[in-house]
């Protein structure tokens, strides 16, 4: 019994010192960026000893949650508008916002040779469901709508549209085959080798400049600030590029 108590006490002391040294960062991540973020977070944890706790969702939904007191300290959005909303609400640390990546939209199917490299499949309309993310809350969903509008196909495709709660659910709808195809983020399917996809020309939709912002809740958290800085480092940017994102102009000009 004594031994147990001793082990227990040691554990408590060891644990309390660990938590005192390493800080936790609560991060809200736009669903499209969750895979690279997990990789970046792991590297960051290894490099600094801090702990990163992520929650993914549609950017608009995450902002709504933060407006109502969700305890996130860092927010990686899929656009610029949503973090700007936090600025209007004065929930941010002023001047902390910057662009960390530029996203790309793809039309994707889990079936091989289903989507051609010009997106002509959209015109045949020979499918039951096309999945997009909820355009009201997810920037990638909004981008998908503008692409269909640009192709003058929105009216004919509308009855076939199914909406994922975030781009993550959208990918799940297509990945499980329940929707034959759908508009998802390149980062979600870049490692996919069996499906087929069409990279939508980037000037067909408003640029998906993805901004990160430090929230007031993280103002005194050194780890949160460190994470914001870490996103700008070469190893983090390598991961971002690896998942198909473009780097913002500040990063590409700095690197040279």
């Amino acid at each position, binding site marked *: 019994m004594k031994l147990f108590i001793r082990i227990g006490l040691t554990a408590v002391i060891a644990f309390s010192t660990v938590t005192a040294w390493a800080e936790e960062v609560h991060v809200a991540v736009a669903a499209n960026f969750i895979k690279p973020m997990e990789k970046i977070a792991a590297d960051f944890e290894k490099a600094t000893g801090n702990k990163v706790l992520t929650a993914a969702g*549609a950017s*608009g*939904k995450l902002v*709504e949650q933060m*407006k109502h007191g969700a305890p996130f300290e860092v927010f990686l959005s899929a656009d610029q508008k949503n973090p700007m909303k936090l600025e209007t609400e004065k929930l941010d640390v002023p001047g902390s916002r910057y662009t960390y990546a530029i996203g790309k939209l793809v039309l994707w199917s889990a079936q091989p040779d289903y989507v051609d490299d010009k997106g002509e499949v959209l015109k045949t309309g020979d499918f*039951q*469901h096309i*999945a997009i993310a*909820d355009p*009201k*809350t997810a920037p990638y969903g909004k981008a998908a709508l503008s692409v269909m509008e640009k192709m003058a196909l929105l009216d004919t495709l509308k009855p076939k*549209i*199914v*909406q*994922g*709660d975030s781009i993550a659910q959208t990918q799940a*709808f297509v990945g*499980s*085959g*329940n*929707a034959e195809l759908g508009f998802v983020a390149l980062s979600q399917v870049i490692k996919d080798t069996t499906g087929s996809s069409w990279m939508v020309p980037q000037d067909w939709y408003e640029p998906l400049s993805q901004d990160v912002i430090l929230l007031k809740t993280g103002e005194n958290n050194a780890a949160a600030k460190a994470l914001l800085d870490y996103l700008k480092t070469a190893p983090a940017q390598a991961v971002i590029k690896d998942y198909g994102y473009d780097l913002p102009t500040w990063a590409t000009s700095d690197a040279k």
Partner: protein
Amino acid sequence: MLNDEDFGAILLTLKLASLVTVILLLVGTPIAWWLAHTVSRWKGIIGALVALPLVLPPAVLGFYLLVLMGPQGAVGQFTKAIGLGTLPFTFGGLVIASVIYSLPFVVQPLQNAFEAIGTRPLEVAATLRASPLDTFFSVVVPLARPGFLTASILGFAHTIGEFGVVLMVGGNIPDKTRVISMQIFNHVETGEYAQAHWLSAGMLVFSFVVLLVLYTLTPNPWRQR
């Protein structure tokens, strides 16, 4: 106040719940009858299966339905073979999901009602040369009326409140799968609290009225004694 999409969601939900209640009464009555009278050793297993949606997280049910009804799933391949296409993201898919989800809410009140009647009235009816079917409709149904009432109201109300399963297999399509609870979720997540309030208050009043009707119409067992 409420917009067209909200009214669309209300109409869709009522349509879904009515259809599901009718199907559940048709499917649930024989199951409840069998459960009430069988001495088979399967009784425990079937009873547990019927009650499963009571304890199973809706997300789990939704996930299995999405996989089963999808193009690679057994149900999905069957529905594709008979020319129905796949069921997720369709009204038909929601009906099937809701029938499974609300099954115990219909079967259990009916089973209790049938068990309360016992075998004595059936035997009496048989001695009067009533056929089993005749016995069922002229003896059992009138006697089990409170059970049928409870089953219908609970089945209907529970379908109206369904959310988790719809979130998994619905696809949030206006007028097809966007039911009231989904619409409330959409409003809250986009900060449209006024509309969320109207719909939620409506659901609150509705739920209260349902229970009020249920408790007023069902005879109080304590008073009878």
